[in-house]
């Protein structure tokens, strides 16, 4: 046993050559390649024609070939879809973060009977497979007369996003020192002002986490628009893309360029928010 162990350390294996950290680096680099490959292929394919995609799927394209993007611009409702996605996502995020932060503040800070029940009630929302309720939801939206209306999407997304937001925010708010609020109360701040001027700037890191967590699935959601929206002018990007996927079944180049355009805003938002998040983490310290 011990002789084996000695042998093992004597041998110059990959572990010996690179060391523990080296191996970790290799794994992380491999992981990065795996994660980035689909995105890179998507962007590459956006600049190729369909035959080129099949001839050399991994080849580097001629980046001056923008006819796919021109086609999308000219022949589809792309801008309209993009705008719809923005409206629905932004409205949902505003509602989720506003309601979620307010609920989490109340749950995290005020001791009232039933507080833990309400928190459990919210968190139970995390366990519900919302898509199973699609038929009752459809009927509900029909009775509310908001089928074929972006309100139906905004409501569903808000309900979907609240549980995780409240979960994250409640935990974070509970870690903030009570004396800050006491100090603000002594200073004469109303409860609303304490939340707005003192707590809100401090919970920004948690809001960014909750924001990132929610904005991606909402932006990319395909299922609910498919069910609730029929009017072409109200379609969101993922749903709209399938429309011209039907028309251009064979034209993969156009599809990929559409995908690239649709993914671009969310990737940019993600990068910006990540920076914010890191900045927030380092500047929030109290003592």
């Amino acid at each position, binding site marked *: 046993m011990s002789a084996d162990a000695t042998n093992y350390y004597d041998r110059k294996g990959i572990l010996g050559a690179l060391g523990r950290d080296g191996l970790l680096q290799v794994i992380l680099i491999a992981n990065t390649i795996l994660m980035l490959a689909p995105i890179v292929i998507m962007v590459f394919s956006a600049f190729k024609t369909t035959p080129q995609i099949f001839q050399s799927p991994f080849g580097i394209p001629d980046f001056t070939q923008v006819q796919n993007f021109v086609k999308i611009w000219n022949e589809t409702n792309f801008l309209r879809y993009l705008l719809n996605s923005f409206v629905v996502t932004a409205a949902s995020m505003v509602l989720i973060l506003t309601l979620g932060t307010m609920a989490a503040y109340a749950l995290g800070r005020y001791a009232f009977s039933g507080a833990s029940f309400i928190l459990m009630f919210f968190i139970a929302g995390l366990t519900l497979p919302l898509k199973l309720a699609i038929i009752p939801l459809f009927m509900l939206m029909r009775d509310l007369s908001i089928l074929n209306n972006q309100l139906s999407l905004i409501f569903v997304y808000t309900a979907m996003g609240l549980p995780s937001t409240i979960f994250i925010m409640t935990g974070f708010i509970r870690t903030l020192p009570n004396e*800050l609020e006491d100090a603000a*109360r002594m*200073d004469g*701040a109303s409860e609303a002002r304490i939340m707005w001027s003192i707590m809100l*700037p*401090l919970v920004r890191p948690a809001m960014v986490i909750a924001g990132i967590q929610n904005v991606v699935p909402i932006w990319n959601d395909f299922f609910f628009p498919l069910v609730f929206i029929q009017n072409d002018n109200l379609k969101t990007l993922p749903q709209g893309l399938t429309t011209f996927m039907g028309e251009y079944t064979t034209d993969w180049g156009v599809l990929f360029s559409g995908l690239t355009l649709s993914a671009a805003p969310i990737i940019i938002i993600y990068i910006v928010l990540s920076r914010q998040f890191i900045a927030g983490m380092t*500047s929030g310290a109290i003592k």
Partner: protein
Amino acid sequence: MGGSGRESNVAQLSLRGIKKRFRETAVLHGIDLEIGDREFVVFVGPSGCGKSTLLRLIAGLDPITEGEFVLNGTRMNDVAPSRRGIAMVFQSYALYPHMDVYENMAFGARLMGLTKAEVEARIAEAARMLRLEALLKRKPRELSGGQRQRVAIGRALVRKPDVFLLDEPLSNLDAALRSEVRLEIARLHREIGGTMIYVTHDQVEAMTLADKIVVMNNGRIEQVGSPRDLYETPANTFVATFIGSPRMALVDVTRDGDRLAVANGGAVVTGALPDATSLKLGLRPDAVQLHRGAGSEGLSAKVEYTEYLGDNAYVYARLADGTLLSARTTPNDLFAPDEAVTVTVTPGAAHYFSAEDGRRLNP
């Protein structure tokens, strides 16, 4: 509402039968206390004695369960914290971390509805008093502990309150800074002249700062008095052992004529005695003398160890009944561990307490 009081800065506080319960747990069992204008009052006591709770009740941060708090003749029980004319300095300073020093001080002043010029004037004045002028644009995280402490005091100052509450303000500072800020607080109290209520568990802070000390234990007031009162005539064994360092030794003795005897440890003459056969003898380090060797007149004891402090030394000796006693000696007069000594008491310097309830007995 307190406005007339604020201009003249008069503050007369009365606490009448204050009780506080958190659900079933009683924390304060009826506090009666009068605090006069411009007094520097220190609440002192061990952790969990209710001193911080009492401070929060005065501030209005927690509701009073029972009893009445009156400030300048107005009942304050149901008045919002900011309308009581009270400002508070918190133990953790509780500076708003996302605001710079100026904004931290301006926040409360603006909420009072002051004009912009008035806010600026008050902050300038507070910054000058606390030497914060150069730091106004810094965030709290860019300040040292002592600077944060001064900002926290400055934030209270700009509101020009009738009463300042300070909750263990020095507990987060290192020893050197502590005595410096202590002096600063004493100076501020002289300059601004408001009533200050200061909470600490450190009896040195209490003794050096206070006009009046309130010693608390288990949600009750044990004694109220000037530092000299508490040191020279402690009302009971708790106050006697809490105030003074090294602490007063309490020896169980029985009276034998004009001498007090310790169980198998000799007897000692201490001067005039109270009228009781068995009592507790309280001995501060400066009330006793140690003599080398076993003598006939005095309490026999054995030296445990000696603390050398430069200008004097404390010798800790154990009496025959197991009580540890400390004696102040000159630094030249050092004793070896396990050396046998005889303890005598300066006549009139001892304290006497009832053996049953620990109350002070006067000769």
